[in-house]
């Protein structure tokens, strides 16, 4: 072993250790930010390690440097700009886009190696010689393509660029996807048999499979899919590691793949969905439109902002239930203004965060943190649920399915069994909502019919602004 090899070995080992510590740290609130930086440092370290190894052994041609610099600058620049500019509300689709590009990268590496078998250096870079290389190239292409197209479809759906086509809700989609999957298998074995041209078939059908699997999945389940695709991109990276013979790639890819699977599982649990039903069940709304639970409302009480303000002023304890609608209206800052006023009047305010509030688990926490809501005021569902009976006023802002009592009471409801916030236990519930439209699931919300629930119709931001005005008139928070 000469010196460059030893140095690379040590750097790789250190990078793996730091990456592992990074992932571990990211799962705790206190250490998360440092852990993220640690992981970023480990990644840069691994690049330095690889480049110094080549400089010390084969050397790096000027031409290679040029292409390295071009690729790095363009990729990093776009990544950094997007990361800085994108609003916090579009976080899920941003992660999906980044993830898709990671998959694309693995796909291209495998493709490059497959089409242009490189002339042997001292490491004997003979591709397509052994079965292992062919298998790892195929896996890398297959998983990379699915990750890419799947992520792009997920992003487009979250952005509202793509809706769910009707046919994808019928059984036809299973047939179509099985055809794609079988075709991928055929291309795979053809490739291993030495027929290099079938690589294009593999690229095509695995791309189509990624689209076919992701397209039928409804918006509410999309975060789970993104998390799963994130796990796939780790697997794709590990496969690329076999292609270029890099242990570091294999370890890092395997870690992300496995951690992504666990995270996917955790997310499914929070939504009371199984991974199988997410992937093959179609969207929830399609199943429920026919079900009996979509009845008419009989007892809707609507009230003005003024009444709402009066009730709030007299309260001792207020719980805010923020949801997707709040995020869409970008009203988190206005909400913070309202709660500040209430707090100044000595009213206790906390926020009840359902595990899937917002558009992605944990997304609401990020949005409220952006609006300077103290972290201690954000309560998780299990912590806050016993508090509702002792609460005077609950403000539901753009949340719907997560406060539907049907999930507890009506065993025929598609929502039955989903963990929900028991807002109906509070003395008064105000639901701020644009109109009577249903939530993600398309299911009637029994909460709206209850006698202690009043609807305040209007855009969340506008209602909150009016509320600030009314509270001012009442002299709340004027100290």
């Amino acid at each position, binding site marked *: 072993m000469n010196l460059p090899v030893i140095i690379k070995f040590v750097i790789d080992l250190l990078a793996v250790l730091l990456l592992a510590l990074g992932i571990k740290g*990211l799962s705790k609130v206190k250490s998360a930010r440092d852990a993220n930086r640690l992981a970023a440092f480990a990644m840069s370290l691994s690049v330095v390690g690889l480049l110094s190894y080549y400089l010390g052994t084969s050397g790096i041609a000027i031409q*290679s440097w040029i292409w390295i610099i071009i690729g790095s600058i363009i990729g990093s620049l776009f990544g950094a700009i997007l990361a800085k500019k994108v609003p916090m509300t579009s976080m899920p689709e941003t992660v999906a886009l980044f993830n898709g590009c990671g998959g694309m990268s693995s796909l291209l590496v495998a493709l490059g190696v497959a089409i242009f078998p490189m*002339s042997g250096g001292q490491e004997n870079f003979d591709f397509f010689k052994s079965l292992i290389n062919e298998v790892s190239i195929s896996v890398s292409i297959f998983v990379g393509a699915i990750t890419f197209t799947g992520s792009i479809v997920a992003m487009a759906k979250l952005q509202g660029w793509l809706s769910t086509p009707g046919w994808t809700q019928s059984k036809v989609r299973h047939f179509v996807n099985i055809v794609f999957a079988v075709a991928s298998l055929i291309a795979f074995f053809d490739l291993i048999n030495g027929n290099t041209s079938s690589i294009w078939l593999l690229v095509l059908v695995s791309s189509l499979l990624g689209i076919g699997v992701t397209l039928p999945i409804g918006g509410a389940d999309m975060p789970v899919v993104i998390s799963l695709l994130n796990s796939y991109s780790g697997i794709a990276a590990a496969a690329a590691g076999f292609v270029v013979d890099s242990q570091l790639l294999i370890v890092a890819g395997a870690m992300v793949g496995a951690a992504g699977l666990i995270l996917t599982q955790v997310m499914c649990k929070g939504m009371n969905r199984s991974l199988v039903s997410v992937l093959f069940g179609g969207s929830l709304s399609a199943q429920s439109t026919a079900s009996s639970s979509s009845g008419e409302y009989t007892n809707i009480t609507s009230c003005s902002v003024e009444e709402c303000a009066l009730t709030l002023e007299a309260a001792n304890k207020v719980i805010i239930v923020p949801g997707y609608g709040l995020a869409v209206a970008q009203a988190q800052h206005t909400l913070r203004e309202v709660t500040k006023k209430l707090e100044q009047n000595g009213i206790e305010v906390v926020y009840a965060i359902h595990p899937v509030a917002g558009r992605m688990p944990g997304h609401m926490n990020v949005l409220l943190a952006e609006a300077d809501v103290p972290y201690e005021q954000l309560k998780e569902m299990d912590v806050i649920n016993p508090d509702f009976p002792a609460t005077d006023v609950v403000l539901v802002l753009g949340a719907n399915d997560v406060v539907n009592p049907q999930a507890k009471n009506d065993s025929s409801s598609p929502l039955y069994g989903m963990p929900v916030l028991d807002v109906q236990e509070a003395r008064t519930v105000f639901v701020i909502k644009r109109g009577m439209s249903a939530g993600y699931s398309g299911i009637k919300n029994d909460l709206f019919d209850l006698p202690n629930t009043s609807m305040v119709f209007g855009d969340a931001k506008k209602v909150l602004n009016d509320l600030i005005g009314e509270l001012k008139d009442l002299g709340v928070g004027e100290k």
Partner: protein
Amino acid sequence: MSFISLLWVLLLGSLLGLELIGKVPPTLHTPLMSGANAISGITMLAALTLIVKAEGNVPLLIIGSVSLGFALFNVVGGFFVTDRMLAMFSRKPSNKK
């Protein structure tokens, strides 16, 4: 490195990944996903290898460079965006007291 030892590396890496995330508070689901996603851009090393070993083969250089671009988009964007999210959490305690 022999195939068998690479398989060992794969196995141990997967086990490590399964063990690393025990209990994650829902608050951190989005940042954790985004951070792990940035790490999956480690394929940038494979892209670099491809470029270095291309030995003047221009199409291969281009493929490698594009692949490197995609990977770095993933890595740089992923880490930045995660940091932005986490910055919002860590700002709080210092403000509060």
